[in-house]
């Protein structure tokens, strides 16, 4: 069973507002991923980290999204200026390494942008 913790579970923001969500990966997991699941049930990869370093991120993330995984603090994903299309379930996952290990998912933060 996954021990990835995500907060808050629900987040409601107005358009243009910042939206910040946090993730505590499983202990001992240096690799963290963020995914977005939209209302059509489609998953999209956003960004991933190994320890504090960003390894890969998509264009959307580079423009309005910022993310970090500081040492000894929760990882975070922040949308600088929320848009209606950002309403989705944001899932954080962690894994032990880049090899054959599986990813463990948190329960997600459901963002609603009004």
């Amino acid at each position, binding site marked *: 069973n*996954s021990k990835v913790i995500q907060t808050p579970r629900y987040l409601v923001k107005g358009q243009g507002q910042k939206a910040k969500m946090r993730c505590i990966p499983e202990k001992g997991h240096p690799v963290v991923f963020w995914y977005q*699941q939209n209302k059509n049930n*489609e*998953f999209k990869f956003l960004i991933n980290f190994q320890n504090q370093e960003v*390894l*890969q991120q998509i264009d959307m993330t580079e423009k309005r999204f910022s993310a970090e995984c500081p040492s000894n603090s929760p990882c975070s994903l922040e949308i600088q200026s929320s848009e209606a299309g950002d309403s989705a379930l944001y899932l954080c996952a962690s894994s032990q390494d880049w090899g054959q290990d599986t*990813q463990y998912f948190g329960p997600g933060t*459901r963002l609603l942008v009004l």
Partner: protein
Amino acid sequence: GQQVQQSPASLVLQEGENAELQCNFSSTATRLQWFYQRPGGSLVSLLSNPSGTKHTGRLTSTTVTKERRGSLHISSSQITDSGTYLCAMEPDTGYQNFYFGKGTSLTVIP
């Protein structure tokens, strides 16, 4: 871009029947991973399979990466198996991220 197609989109079974879920993908992959999504959102990792056949409990995953396809077999389905089953493909780019299919919605009825 990467494409992952799952079929069927939805499936209704009577308790005790077997289910066969298919996953096809458009590019070469390092492995397939199957997830179960409970109603309400949280994901559970089921099987991670680079190739061949893997079993856990009533689940059997078969991955044929050369043919860009995989499957998940659920034997003796139970009502608690109801939910969405997602196939995710890890491309062989060297980065461990996944491209997901849209899922198969499974409903098991008494």
